[in-house]
């Protein structure tokens, strides 16, 4: 299969503008006759559905949640990047483009990333106009902060709840279109199959989760914006319901899964505390603006902390190893996520972990508290403030910046982070891989589009902080509304698609058979127990570091687990009713297939890049060793039960020089 990315000709700076100005359009009278299905209502899905509705298309939007406002975009904390250069610190579209390409370890498409950087500016304008209450300075203008992997301040934020505020903005725009009748909203509906007619995506089979009934929906094209697949690891920062099902069903119908092994392990999460744990909680990367990461210099001190004889406060300044500042002086605590995560793992592997499990490092705010306290005292005219006064003022500043995160930390751990340094450890957070799409965000199936985290296109092998929100909204507000016209302009003579067509009949029957197969196993083990076991395999062999031997073993283990699942899973109840266990089972079944492809992709990529670290390929200093000559390509996997097959899209770099990433 030849993968054509359909990147427009012209210089990098002109590609999008020129393409957008010359592409085919659908006239307003025709838009009214065209139906679009949008699956997922997170940032990408809600913004796409709202904007397509505004343009005049008939949109049907779907979410498995009880309301579109629940999508997991809501949990994004730190912020959203935009090349506004409001801080006059040297930012520009090109710099955002360059940082993103470099941050992604040169494994993303130049043209897509540049378009993303261009759209970033419009996103902030749009969101402010919708009433998103971004943080502001005293002069009333928008505030910014820094995120990992960059040396400018381009991140816009709404305390630690940026995702929530952006999602509510998109949700409100969507709600307006629902009221205007341009979007029909289907809550508590889960897409369980994609329907193709003459090779084009023409509809979906969705299960009404309240009644269990399978329903058919037809349209001229289908857009999936259903997020990432981090929950394949069971423990992740994703919401419990986040799943790969809509994307995976599309893959089963012929779409390709691109770079599935690129998963992001986020360095600052609250460490695992027990076997019962159901999810991990992120502590925003923004904390690394002010928090300093360290472990004790000696194993003896680390042991004393682990056994509870000492706390972080008992370790003298000279006995601490601020290892990020030491190893990467140029970026310090703000190195990209993959680098910070691996460094934490290295420190813990050396026996310097600071939690009872040995898997945690400190994130310490005491220096920032002192710095802010002194500055605040000075600005309020206090002379010779006492240490206690400085600490008090400093804590107040930290509270204003990160209050909800500190509160969340205390609720979960029971420890006060204003006094004791936080304990953090890396956890699965985001998946850069996803459904393969071309420049139009169209998959290899004509009429099937993938947006946001569900596609693979913009972040390469590692995503920079505050770029997920940017990409979700760029795709939904500013890319798909244009590029979808390239497909739909050829469909204006296509009459309304009928759900009575045999293709729908067949897809519905196949979906019903699968559900019946699952409920009729009536085995002995719960869905949850299979999911946990899958997660353990994936984390151990396809997690923060990987090697060929382990991956080969893991593939076999996943295949065996899949077989066991279909022979011994127990799902109470039937398929024809509200049945949360059956919903979970369907999602785990898909993870059991995806997991295998992830492992194969990791095995196939004999290099280290970004979030994909193969132990065999590292520099003498333990940094990722890329092999551009052989691996500067996108690996797009075609599903096959017995032997998935890889297709390759070469990545062409015309504007940036491929270099070894250095943050030193």
């Amino acid at each position, binding site marked *: 299969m030849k993968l054509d990315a359909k990147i427009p000709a012209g210089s990098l700076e002109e590609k999008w503008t020129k393409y957008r100005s010359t592409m085919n359009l659908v006239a307003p009278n025709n838009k009214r006759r065209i139906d679009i299905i949008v699956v997922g209502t997170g940032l990408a899905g809600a913004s796409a559905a709202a904007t397509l509705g*505004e343009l005049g298309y008939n949109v049907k939007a779907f979410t498995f949640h009880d*309301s*579109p*406002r*629940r999508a*997991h975009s*809501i*949990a994004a904390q730190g912020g959203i990047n935009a090349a*506004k250069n409001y801080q006059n610190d040297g930012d520009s579209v090109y710099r955002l483009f360059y940082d993103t390409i470099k941050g992604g370890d040169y494994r993303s498409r130049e043209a897509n990333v540049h378009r993303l950087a261009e759209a970033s500016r419009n996103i*902030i*304008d*749009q*969101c*402010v*106009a*919708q*009433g998103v*209450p*971004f943080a*502001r*300075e*005293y002069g*009333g*203008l*928008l505030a910014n902060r820094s995120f990992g992997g960059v040396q400018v301040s381009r991140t816009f934020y*709404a305390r630690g*709840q940026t*995702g*929530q*505020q952006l999602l*509510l903005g998109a*949700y*409100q*725009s969507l*709600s*307006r279109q*629902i*009221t205007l009748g341009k979007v029909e*909203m289907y809550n508590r509906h889960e897409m369980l199959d994609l329907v193709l007619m003459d090779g084009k995506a023409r509809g979906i089979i969705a299960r009404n989760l309240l009644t269990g009934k399978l329903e058919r929906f037809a349209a001229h094209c289908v857009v999936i914006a259903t997020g990432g697949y981090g929950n394949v690891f069971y423990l992740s920062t994703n*919401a*419990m319901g986040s799943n790969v099902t809509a994307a995976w069903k599309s893959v089963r119908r012929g779409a390709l899964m691109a770079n599935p092994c690129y998963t992001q392990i986020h360095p600052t999460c609250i460490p695992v*505390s*027990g076997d*019962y*744990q*159901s*999810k991990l909680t992120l502590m925003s990367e923004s904390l690394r603006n002010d928090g300093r990461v360290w472990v004790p210099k000696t194993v003896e001190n680390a042991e004393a902390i682990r056994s509870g004889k000492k706390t972080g406060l008992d370790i003298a300044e000279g006995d601490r190893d601020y290892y990020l500042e030491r190893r990467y002086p140029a970026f310090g605590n703000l190195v990209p996520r993959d680098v910070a995560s691996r460094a934490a793992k290295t420190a813990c592997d050396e026996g310097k972990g600071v939690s009872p499990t040995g898997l945690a490092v400190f994130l310490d705010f005491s220096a920032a508290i002192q710095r802010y306290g002194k500055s605040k005292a000075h600005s309020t005219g206090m002379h010779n403030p006492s240490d206690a006064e400085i600490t008090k003022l400093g804590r107040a500043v930290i509270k204003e910046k990160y209050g909800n995160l500190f509160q*969340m930390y205390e*609720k*979960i751990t*029971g420890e006060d982070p204003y006094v004791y340094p936080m304990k953090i450890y890396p956890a699965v957070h985001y998946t850069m891989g996803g459904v393969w799409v071309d420049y139009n965000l169209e998959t290899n199936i004509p009429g099937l589009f993938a947006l946001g985290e569900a596609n693979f296109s913009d972040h390469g092998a590692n995503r920079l902080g505050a770029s997920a929100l940017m990409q979700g909204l760029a795709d939904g*507000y*500013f890319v798909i509304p244009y590029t979808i016209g390239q497909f739909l302009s050829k469909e204006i003579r296509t009459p309304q698609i009928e759900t009575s067509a045999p293709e729908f009949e067949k897809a519905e029957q196949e979906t019903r058979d699968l559900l019946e197969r699952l409920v009729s196993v009536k085995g002995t083990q*719960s869905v*949850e*127990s299979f999911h946990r076991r899958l997660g353990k395999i994936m984390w151990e062999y396809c997690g923060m570091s990987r090697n060929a031997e382990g991956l080969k073993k893991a593939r076999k283990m996943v295949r065996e687990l899949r077989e066991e699942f279909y022979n011994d899973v127990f799902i*109470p*109840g039937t398929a024809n009713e*509200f049945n*949360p266990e059956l919903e979970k089972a369907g999602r785990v079944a898909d993870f059991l297939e995806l997991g295998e492809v992830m492992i194969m992709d990791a095995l196939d990529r004999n290099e280290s890049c970004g979030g994909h670290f193969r132990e065999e390929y590292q520099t003498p200093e333990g940094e990722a060793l890329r092999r551009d000559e052989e691996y500067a390509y996108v690996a797009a996997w075609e599903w096959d039960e017995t032997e998935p097959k890889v297709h390759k899209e070469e990545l062409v770099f015309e504007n940036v020089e491929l270099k070894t990433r250095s943050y030193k």
Partner: protein
Amino acid sequence: MKLTLKVWRQNGPNDKGNLETHQVEASEHMSFLEMMDVLNENLISEKKTPVAFEHDCREGICGTCNMVINGRPHGPQKGTTVCQLHMRAFKDGDTIVVEPWRASAFPVIKDLVVDRSPFDRIIQAGGYISVNTGQAQDANAIPIEKDLASQAFDAATCIGCGACVAACPNGSAMLFTSAKVAHLNMLPQGEVESSKRVLNMVNQMDEEGFGMCSNVGACEAECPKEISITNIALMNREYLTASLASNTTT
């Protein structure tokens, strides 16, 4: 720790429902929902139907989880959703009663799952700013005073969980509705449509069958995001002004 749970079981909206008693062994480090997971795993191993409850992000922001624990929406801890509540808030040997939101506008779907779609319809009635994609001017064109932006943000942090309704003896949705009215009406961008917004949203709220506000204040006390009841005062003021200025309450 050993706990006795009395959990509400109700098989569908027309079922009468009852409290079912279970014993669960939990660790104090578990979240409340992880303790419920243990209960469900136990039930599944006995081939019984697990307790249906809603949850998703488990970090207190999606607003999906909803349980009345010992008579209090989201349980005993202030400013905390059920998913963020940890078992260290309870003692070994405790008996814990777990019920769904109880409000006539939120019918029970199954066990602890209720229908909160009225909230979506209140937002659809006017909880937005009418701006199409692409129509916006530069984001810094209108400076907004820091404190005002911060106040709007405080109102905007509502997670739409419905605890305010569950806490209110009248089953009123005033705190939810007013939080959105306040967020948008306070900002210069939202001012243009402010009258229409408040009239339409209040009208929809009434149509959904939520009760009246009688200034009990339980909503504010139980709100996991600690949304202030002053938003209700603001909404009342906006509503009154808008009604006086207009005869058409569409």
